[in-house]
């Protein structure tokens, strides 16, 4: 391979690496004063394009981050000067590259303002549905079309949603600052909920037995780690990260050899990712003594109880029911109530679970909520209520979007019909 190709490759890799690790830092830095995220993104995109031209010729700079930041700042000034029209940009490129080369000595460490950026993305003024997508775009540099698919939204609609949110940040005075979490703990909740929304996109099962991700799991874990690191004194970010790690640790056990769905109960715990579970347990140990229990720590504790059987003992359903009681008290959510009913059925039998489900019946949101029908089918099946089980299985099958889960429900329905035919 000729030497210049090698340099090109190396430069390309350096640019890619900087894009992956520094994107959010650079955006946060660029937009900290102006709060203009769209402009920061444009400027940074131009800086990356410039790097791909300059680095193969002149070598990778000692601090790619600092180089990119300087380049992006100049582009931003350029845009401003030219009223954001980019005509005549090309002839100036070579001059700029030279200037940047000369500037390399003036290197300062880049401040990490990502936390401010993250809090701005999840600000109460931003519509909740835009918060997670905005974080994915500005902190991680994800493409709007990919984000749209993950959230099952058309790319055009997602593009508009993101533009609206950025306009709000720029024009409505959404601050780029870390809120006082003592007085406004809900600001952190909004951040964590957005990160969890990234993680759960595409999960069909609220208990986390089957996180069939549409590819955003790694992104959610990155954000979760980042927030836990940047807020070391807060227990809830640790709880969220632990929750995601427990669920992610089971990814290898969720499908059998033929790609069929395997429920949590039936999973081979030997296929779970032990180091990830250990990481999660360590995080829990660090979070719990802080004495401020929140939704994510409780959910992580439930996951911890579920994976406990890897040590050989039976699952402690009593403990899990108690944890769901606490979760329900904190969130009051349908999902928590549903999972509490399922856990209760493991402790006290299927009929007890059905009684608990009765509390939910009549909620209009359940009409198209697949997990409710799947839970009901399971409980009626186990309780020997054949006709009701049959109807609930049908509803669950009809509402399921994941083909593997659909097939597993169809198998269970067929088995019920086979048994009841005698």
């Amino acid at each position, binding site marked *: 391979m000729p030497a210049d190709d090698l340099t090109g490759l190396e430069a390309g890799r350096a640019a890619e690496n900087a894009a992956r690790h520094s994107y959010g830092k650079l955006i946060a830095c660029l937009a900290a004063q102006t709060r203009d995220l769209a402009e920061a993104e444009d400027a940074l995109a131009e800086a990356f394009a410039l790097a791909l031209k300059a680095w193969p010729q002149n070598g990778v700079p000692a601090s790619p981050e600092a180089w990119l930041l300087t380049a992006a700042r100049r582009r931003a000034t350029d845009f401003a000067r030219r009223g954001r029209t980019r005509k005549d940009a090309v002839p100036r490129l070579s001059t700029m590259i030279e200037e940047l080369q000369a500037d390399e000595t003036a290197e300062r460490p880049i401040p990490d303002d990502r936390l401010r950026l993250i809090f701005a993305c999840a600000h109460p003024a931003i519509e909740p549905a835009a918060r997670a997508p905005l974080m994915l775009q500005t902190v991680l540099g994800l493409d709007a079309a990919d984000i749209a698919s993950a959230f*099952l*939204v*058309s790319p055009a*609609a997602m593009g508009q949603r993101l533009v609206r949110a950025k306009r709000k940040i720029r024009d409505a005075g959404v601050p780029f600052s870390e809120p006082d979490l003592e007085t406004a703990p809900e600001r952190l909740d909004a951040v964590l909920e957005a990160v969890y929304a990234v993680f759960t996109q595409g999960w069909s099962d609220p208990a986390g037995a089957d996180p069939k991700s549409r590819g955003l799991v790694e992104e959610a874990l990155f954000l979760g780690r980042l927030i836990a690191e940047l807020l070391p004194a807060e227990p809830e970010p640790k709880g969220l990260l632990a929750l995601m790690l427990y669920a992610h640790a089971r990814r290898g056990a969720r499908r059998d050899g033929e790609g069929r769905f395997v429920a949590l109960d039936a999973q081979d715990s030997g296929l779970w990712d032990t180091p990830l579970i250990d990481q999660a347990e360590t995080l829990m140990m660090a979070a719990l003594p802080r004495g401020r229990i929140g939704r994510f720590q409780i959910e992580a504790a439930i996951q911890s109880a579920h994976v406990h059987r890897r040590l050989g003992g039976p699952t402690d359903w009593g403990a899990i029911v108690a944890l769901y009681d606490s979760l329900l008290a904190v969130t009051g959510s349908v999902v928590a109530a549903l999972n509490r009913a399922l856990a209760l059925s493991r402790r006290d039998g299927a009929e007890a679970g059905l009684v608990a489900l009765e509390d939910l019946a009549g909620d209009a949101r359940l*009409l*198209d909520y697949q997990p409710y029908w799947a839970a009901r089918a399971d409980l009626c099946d186990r309780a020997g209520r054949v006709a009701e089980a049959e109807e609930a299985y*049908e*509803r669950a*099958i*009809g*509402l*399921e*979007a994941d*083909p593997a889960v*659909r*097939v597993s429900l*169809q198998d269970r329905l067929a088995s019920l019909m086979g048994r009841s035919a005698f």
Partner: protein
Amino acid sequence: MQYMLLIIGNADLVAAAKAEDMQALMGAFMAYTKAMQAAGVYVHGNPLKPAPTASTVRLKDGQTRVLDGPYAESREQLGGYFLIEAPDRATALDWAARCPGVPYGAVEVREIEVIPGHNDRAG
């Protein structure tokens, strides 16, 4: 608002499926239809006979011509449709994602254009 879900089948994917998969697919479509009815979104829907049975009418050199087969040669052909009533496109997309036909092709979601008085003329 009403949306048309156009169920498009890919001939290669359908041909590669096992007989029992096709049987499961039929059952899944029945369950899907029932779930839409129970949720109050279903207006109507039907599968179509296979694309090779289609006839296509075109005007060629000022002459009306009838051709055998679908209007476009493609491995992907319209195989059925559902008309649904949904509050917004996001809900329509949720239902499209649940369609059991997705693994065998695609589902196109089109909003129905409302022309005032258009459906009052019959009678």
